[in-house]
């Protein structure tokens, strides 16, 4: 087929304006110049089309051709995505390296899915079966951890006319033919989907289960639900990326999609080198077997950065449609918003706040709204979730930044990172008084059942102590520590213990990087018990300094290092604690 062409009239950085592209459509994908740079039409005025180009436009000038494709910007969905690393427009970076070398050459192109790799397909329907969109036709064991279900594409329903036998096929092979009211449709192992349109589902439901992350401050105080949304704003150096990495490592989701959006190249390398070696604590398989990476680092073309979050979330929806729970991390959405701002500026649109386009807030909320717990398409009622966690990098850590504010209006969990905590190397530096989770109540039932009836009360008590500590600190600042009563000083000691012995967690220490709910409960219980004993001892006249110096406090502070398979150790500490308090009280009573 002869490609239809238009002609470039203007080039300004990543924005190219071309005239007379026949049949130009909004968000249509085009190739710019004979170098065939990838671009997308983002504005049409008369016979002029504005194109955002996903690659560097040096050397392009007026008169060069533009080739239209008639297709919107789409991603390929099928076996072979897991464990891959893509750029913002789904070019496979590992294949590009093999073919083009260590640097990303302009105009390089490779299909996202390997066309020659054979996958072992097992059909799950028979000839003559009635199927609807979203039904499972068969499956491919993509990795040991993930079974890739081949679905009837959206918009197709009818009778299975042909289905291939179990065997090895490439993604381009037709594996089924379905007779619909509208003629016979061929189904391949992969499908294409336009990234800017959310994939449909049957029904959205409110989230009811937490996404368990193994991070104590999150699981215990500010949980995110499966199908929920969260944001992590913080100044640089406050540990946003480490939190995102920790969540992608330890969350109990089936599939993790990690979008490095305008961030550092070395961080992606870190994930690439570390994940194949780390084991999922649940399946025991390497983490890479459930992870997809999208890397559009800060030095890669800015327009592709704008597309990267949509590329990622479309992949997430596809796995959700198979019935999986998917968690998507976007680091950082500020860079995505800046890419929007840059394109908007070049289009000479009227700027809104801080130069961001006026549609900033609506774009952000339409992105987060693609998360959720849903009943997916298909004849069998199947539930699945897509959770979205976005990092935000406000300038100077200032939360009045438009991107932070627009995000806070749409997400339900807010993990506020604090520079002062980070300086004191208190990690994760999630500030306990400023953060919130709107899921805490709806998840309470789950926690009561899984962790114990007294968990919710213990958690509330701990939060109360932390709040009280902030008030007391104000007082200490005015009048000094001596002015406090013994019981207030005890509260401050306990608060310190909650902060240092529970909230602080070292991501780089093997024993501490992940904590099961059970161990979290035991750790909290230990501090709680100590507080109860201490209050009693104080009442009986024991000197506070003696309580504070009890040897068992060292055990409490080291409790985070107790291995997951040795939780009986907690019984010993509890016993030791009781004995030490008993002897303190005896000392007072018998002189």
């Amino acid at each position: 087929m002869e490609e239809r062409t238009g002609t470039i009239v203007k080039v300004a950085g990543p924005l190219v304006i071309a005239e007379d592209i026949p049949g130009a459509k909004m968000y249509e994908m085009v190739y710019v110049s004979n170098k065939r740079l990838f671009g997308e039409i983002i504005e049409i005025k008369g016979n002029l089309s504005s194109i955002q180009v996903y690659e560097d436009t040096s050397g392009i000038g007026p008169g060069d051709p533009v080739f239209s494709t008639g297709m919107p910007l789409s991603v390929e969905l099928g076996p072979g995505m897991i464990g891959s690393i893509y750029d913002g427009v789904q070019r496979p970076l590992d294949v590009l390296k093999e073919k083009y070398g260590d640097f990303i050459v302009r105009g390089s192109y490779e299909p996202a899915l390997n066309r020659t790799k054979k996958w072992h397909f097992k059909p799950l329907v028979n000839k003559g079966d009635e199927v609807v969109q979203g039904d499972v036709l068969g499956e491919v064991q993509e990795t040991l951890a993930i079974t890739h279900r081949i679905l009837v594409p959206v918009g197709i329903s009818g009778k299975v006319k042909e289905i291939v036998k179990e065997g090895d096929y490439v993604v381009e092979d037709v594996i089924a033919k379905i007779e619909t009211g509208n003629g016979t449709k061929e189904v391949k192992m992969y499908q294409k989907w336009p990234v800017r349109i959310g994939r449909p589902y049957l029904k959205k439901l409110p989230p009811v289960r937490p996404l368990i992350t193994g991070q104590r401050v999150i699981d215990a105080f500010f949980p995110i639900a499966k199908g929920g949304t969260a944001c992590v704003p913080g100044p640089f150096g406050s540990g946003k990326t480490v939190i995102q990495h920790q969540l992608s490592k330890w969350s109990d989701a089936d599939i993790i999609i990690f979008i490095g959006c305008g961030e550092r190249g070395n961080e992606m390398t870190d994930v690439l080198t570390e994940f194949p070696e780390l084991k999922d604590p649940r399946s025991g398989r390497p983490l890479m077997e459930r992870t997809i990476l999208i890397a559009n680092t800060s030095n890669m073309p800015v327009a592709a950065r704008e597309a990267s979050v949509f590329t990622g979330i479309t992949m997430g929806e596809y796995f959700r449609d198979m019935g999986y729970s998917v968690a998507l991390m976007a680091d950082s959405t500020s860079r995505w918003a800046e890419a929007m701002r840059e394109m908007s500026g070049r289009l000479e649109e009227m700027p809104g706040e801080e130069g961001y386009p006026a549609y900033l807030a609506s774009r952000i909320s339409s992105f987060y709204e693609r998360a959720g717990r849903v009943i997916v398409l298909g004849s069998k009622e199947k539930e699945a979730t897509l959770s979205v966690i976005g990092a935000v990098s406000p300038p100077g850590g200032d939360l009045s930044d438009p991107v932070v504010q627009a995000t806070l209006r749409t997400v339900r969990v807010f993990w506020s990172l604090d520079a002062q905590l980070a300086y004191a190397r208190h990690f994760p530096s999630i500030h306990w008084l400023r953060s919130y989770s709107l899921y805490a109540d709806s998840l309470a039932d789950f926690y009561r059942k899984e962790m114990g009836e007294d968990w919710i009360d213990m958690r509330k008590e701990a939060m109360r102590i932390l709040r009280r500590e902030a008030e007391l600190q104000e007082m200490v600042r005015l009048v000094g520590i001596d002015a406090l009563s013994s019981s207030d000083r005890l509260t401050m000691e306990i608060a310190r213990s909650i902060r240092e012995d529970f909230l602080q967690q070292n991501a780089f220490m093997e024993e501490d990087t992940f904590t099961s709910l059970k161990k979290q409960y035991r750790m909290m219980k230990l501090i709680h018990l100590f507080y109860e004993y201490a209050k009693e001892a104080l009442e009986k006249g024991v000197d506070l300094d003696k309580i504070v110096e009890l040897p068992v406090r060292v055990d409490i502070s080291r409790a985070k290092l107790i291995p997951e398979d040795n939780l009986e150790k907690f019984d010993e500490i509890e016993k030791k604690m009781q004995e030490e308090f008993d002897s303190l009280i005896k000392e007072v009573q018998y002189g």
Partner: protein
Amino acid sequence: MAKEYITTRNIAGPLIVVDSVEKATYGEIVEIKTADGSIKRGQVLEVNRDRALIQVFEGTSGLNLGDTKIKFLGRGVEIGLAPSILGRIFDGFGNPIDGNPPVIPEKKSDINGVPMNPYARNYPSEFIQTGISAIDGLNTLVRGQKLPIFSGSGLPHAQIAAQIARQAKVRGEGEKFAVVFAAMGVTFEEANYFINDFKETGALERSVMFINLGDDPVIERIATPRFALTTAEYLAFDLDMHVLVILTDMTNYCEALREISAARKEVPGRRGYPGYMYTDLATMYERAGRIKGKKGSITQIPILTMPEDDKTHPIPDLTGYITEGQIFLSRNLHQQAIYPPIDVLPSLSRLKDKGIGKGKTREDHSDVLNQLFAAYARGREARELATVLGESALTKTDLIFVKFADRFEQEFVKQDPYEDRSIEETLDIGWKLLSMIPVGELKRIRPAFIEKYLKKYLKQEEEANASQR
């Protein structure tokens, strides 16, 4: 032969607009011949049908509308590279200023470079010993990292950068090592300080310098760091060298960027800096790194002076979001005559965790580092409290931490500009200081290490106490 255009229509600041151009392309370089015959260079910033917007590197003084001749060269800005580039000094636009003829190129490269494929990167994990305790011990630098120095006017960032260039080494290796130095808008004295220091220590023959002084054309500054980084890429990935790139001063660079943006009448972002400054800085900083299967590496130390020592200013702020940590200089420490005045609390090296520990530095490094940070933070907090309420308001333990913080600054941070401490010396000073603190408070250190490393200092302390009595 390329056409010469005399159709210049507008001149404003560093920008000119040329009409009736046939076939200009974005980013291409142009040669501008002025009425008196001198030649300037410029680059196409935007091309709209037959009209090209050109940014002139050497400034537009002397240009007029009638006699200016413009020639489009059909390529981007390039630099000629060859091994003989080592030891040379250039101006900010790549012309030699050391009196020697230009380098005969073996290869020409576009100074904008191309982004490194993240998949091809090798994660930086080799410890670089700088001999400075505050860096080696607490904010460890590794090969392939970009670690800026956040400074302020009047602080000794140049001395620190020079000390790093002088002392930096990967232990146990005699590998090829080079320094690429780019000065943007600095004073003659500052540039001269580096040149002399490099000469004295014999570092000059393994260095390449690009110097754009304060009175050189502002627009040239946009190109200077790119010349330096393209040279660094050549040395690292073609010649297998380990390259340390020092860029000073990034604040001047960003100001040049703002100047052009204003001349183009773009919608300004925060404080008048263009909205794309993050991306622009990233295309330079991200050129640090290592590549799988290649021997060489590029380590970057950009220096920037924070206006009013404010780290939320857009320049340090955007830099901090791109680089892998920062070394923070403190005016307060400098006033107390502590050199290097590195404030370790807001300083950070994001890549340290993979570069330290057994086989790299020492097994106890990570624990000591965490404990020193925590103890110093607590000591500082208590010290602030004491200045308000007096020392009597502190608990006994807090008093110990205050004393710790003082000694930490005097003994750990402070050192001589020519003192090259090994990592063992650095860690041992750390242990010695930690021995002041009750063992029960050393929560961040594994008990086995306390046993192994702390014991001897505890004994010394006891003996000292005994002799006092």
